[in-house]
């Protein structure tokens, strides 16, 4: 799809995107606009047809991504005033596109999901983020891309709290059918919590009885569930649980998930371990598979 976008083949892009489920479409729209030169192509599409919601959502993400590069992904304390200024200027541009896109396509979850990212970057607060998330949810109740965004919003680093995050993640999981990927929300919530703790206390946190129980429940309901399929989000979920079980030293469960993944994995959350992310994944996979074989 990125190739078609770069080649200005908008009909071709829409042919890919339009046939997807709302959740899959949201995910593709989220990541599709990041090819070089996309901004210009998408602006031309929107000039021709301001009502094209796919173009609006992709252009919104494209502008957000440019802004986020200017900001860098470091914690706020490491971002300079000028970087924030540039970041916010790009996000305001994105928001202008997305306000208009949402006005013309109020029933497009991909646009509301994009507006979750801009809301977070512009620090519009929890109430506005929830309003946007509720719009997605009303249209597509288990939209994983939007859920990942809301999860970030609920983290303390973006104005949320652990007390809000963990119950939310579990509730979203329980609302989805057994075997769905939404168990990953519980895993990611604990991974984010783990990351914020001082080194030395992190493993103890994950090994705590209640956290272990919640992680096991979430894995049993998603990646380890007999109905867990190959729907949108399965790689994210499997990769996140492989990470969690690797850290918990539960090699048997980790191995099961690495087998499921085969050659696949996601960068998140492995990049939190530092160093070469692919190398980290390979090492943990090797260890898990070896441990499980014993």
């Amino acid at each position, binding site marked *: 799809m990125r190739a078609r976008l770069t080649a200005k083949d908008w009909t071709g892009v829409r042919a890919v995107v339009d046939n997807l489920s709302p959740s899959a479409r949201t995910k593709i729209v989220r990541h599709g606009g990041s090819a070089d030169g996309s901004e210009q192509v998408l602006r031309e599409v929107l000039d021709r047809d301001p009502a094209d919601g796919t173009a609006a959502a992709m252009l919104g993400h494209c502008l957000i991504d440019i802004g986020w590069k200017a900001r860098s992904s470091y914690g706020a304390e490491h971002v300079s005033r000028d970087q924030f200024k540039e970041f916010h200027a790009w996000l305001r541009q994105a928001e202008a596109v997305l306000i208009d896109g949402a006005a013309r396509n109020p029933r497009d979850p991909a646009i509301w999901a994009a507006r979750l990212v*801009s809301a977070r970057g512009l620090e519009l607060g929890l109430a506005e983020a929830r309003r946007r998330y509720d719009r997605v949810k009303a249209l597509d109740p288990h939209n994983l891309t939007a859920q990942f965004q809301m999860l970030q919003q609920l983290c303390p680093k973006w104005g949320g709290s652990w007390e809000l995050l963990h119950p939310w993640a579990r509730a979203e999981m329980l609302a989805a059918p057994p075997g769905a990927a939404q168990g990953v929300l519980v895993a990611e919530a604990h991974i984010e919590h783990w990351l914020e703790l001082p080194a030395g206390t992190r493993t103890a946190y994950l090994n705590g009885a209640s956290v272990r129980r919640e992680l096991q429940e979430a894995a049993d309901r998603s990646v380890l569930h007999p109905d867990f399929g190959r729907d949108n989000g399965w790689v994210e979920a499997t990769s996140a649980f492989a990470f969690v079980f690797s850290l918990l030293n539960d090699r048997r469960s980790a191995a099961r998930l690495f087998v499921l993944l085969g050659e696949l994995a996601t960068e998140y959350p492995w990049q939190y371990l530092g160093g070469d992310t692919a190398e980290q994944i390979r090492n943990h996979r090797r260890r898990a598979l070896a441990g499980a074989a014993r």
Partner: protein
Amino acid sequence: MIKQIEIDGVPALLAPAAGAGHAGLAFRVGFADEPLARRGITHLIEHLALFSTGVADYHYNGATGVEYTFFHMHGSADELGEFLTAVCTSLRGLPMHRLAVEKDLLRAEANGRSSGPADPMGLWRHGARDYGLPSYPEWGLPAITEDDLRDWVQRYFTRENAVLWVAGDEVPAGLRLDLPTGVRRKPPAMSSALPVTPAWFPGGSGVLVWDALVPRAPRSAVFAGVLERVMFRELRQEGGLSYAAHAAYEPVGVDHAQVTAVADALPDKQGAVLGGFVDVLAGLRVGRIDEADVAAVVKKQTEALRHADEQGARLPGQALNLLCGREVLEADEVIDGLRAVTAAEIAQVAAEAWEAGLLMTPHTRADWAGFTAAPTHSETAVAGTSYRSRDTPDEKLIVGAEGVSIVSDTNRVTVRFDDCVIMRAWPDGGRHLVGADGIVVFVEPTLYKGARDAVERLDASIPAAVRVEQPARDPGQIPQPVQPVPGTAPSASPRPWRRVIVLALVASAGLAMTSRIGYELAHDLVDVQTGLVGLAATLAVTVLCGAGAVRALRTR
């Protein structure tokens, strides 16, 4: 059928009405005509004119609004004739012996009146002049003299600047409108304090208020109605974000109208109310307009018009139309205009309104949504003698030949002498200056080194016409320097809002002045209001906005 006649040189409208008769006399003068240093003069004249008619069993009242002042009464033909004749006689010879007492009464009235969330809007949009004046308290009262009153009457309360309406079968036989001769006074030109729109400023009340100037036309009235319906649905019913979500349409000047939207918000929902409101407006402006909403609004407004027509309640509005140089319209003509409005026209109004909008946010920022911050600082500072702050290291007062500034590292406010619209002066030396753009400078001699000298220079530079003496302050109210606590670093800006002050303080300090009319109609003249507009919802907006209901009289 509305009949146009003339009585003693005053144009008049006569129409039959169900029930008891009523009549009113209106003048084209209101807050928007007053200089800030005489703010309150029209209201004071209205009170004085009514004093001599003060018989308790008359069902009468007077009201001062942004552009119009009127005297109104329910009763028999004889009573109506007697009342209005007496008002005119009073205007010719105001009971000046009542001046001090009526000033006190007005101050008491202002104290008892609560401020409305939309009160600050005028000040931010227009500054401390013409249509910004309704935002300000009646600060001119102490300075108003008998000569000022006589001049104001001579200028505005004349037969050429008046209109009469009578809801009944005939003009009261004994009615004599013996008014001075003068000229028709057009509504004042509208100033702007906003270099860029759409603009925003942070409110102090946690309520969102938005307004925009639109063409005075049926399509704009229907737009306001549709906006209210969508706000109610999205912000209240679906979002559960606001309890009160209203929009109102009010004519302004000759050819314009103002649409005002108000939405309250729980403290933890303020960001979402702003977001939801931005999306409501965006939806309308891109043309997502539900035909069912349009039909419902046209039906509601049509029914209100029919009802008002039966009661003779359209007459005041039509009389004001006549006074500002517009045609008198029959209800059917207005209804035809409403029914012809299309969704595309409403979208066009929404797009224009978006561009012209001013937003008071419920505390939150609004730059993310395409709004530009309204000015809170001056572009330049004057050159002159500096007086250092006694407690804020980087702050100084500057008095020059052309004006006065307070400057710090992060702020700069200037009032130029030739642009100063009021200087309130306290016996202790405190001076409060307001520029025409609404920027405020407080000069407190206790807070700047050597500032006695600064006050003398101010007093010599400010024209007497804009100086208003204030009663002595309680010693506890005179600001004193804040002594830094030993062992702590002095804060860069310990009191950012006290002296280096912007418009916001006037708005948020609970100086409970607002359009008197919204209040009076809500409390005393409910029959007129409900007869006119017919619907409790509109009344709620009037109360909520504290907006000039004399304008609401002119809605049709």
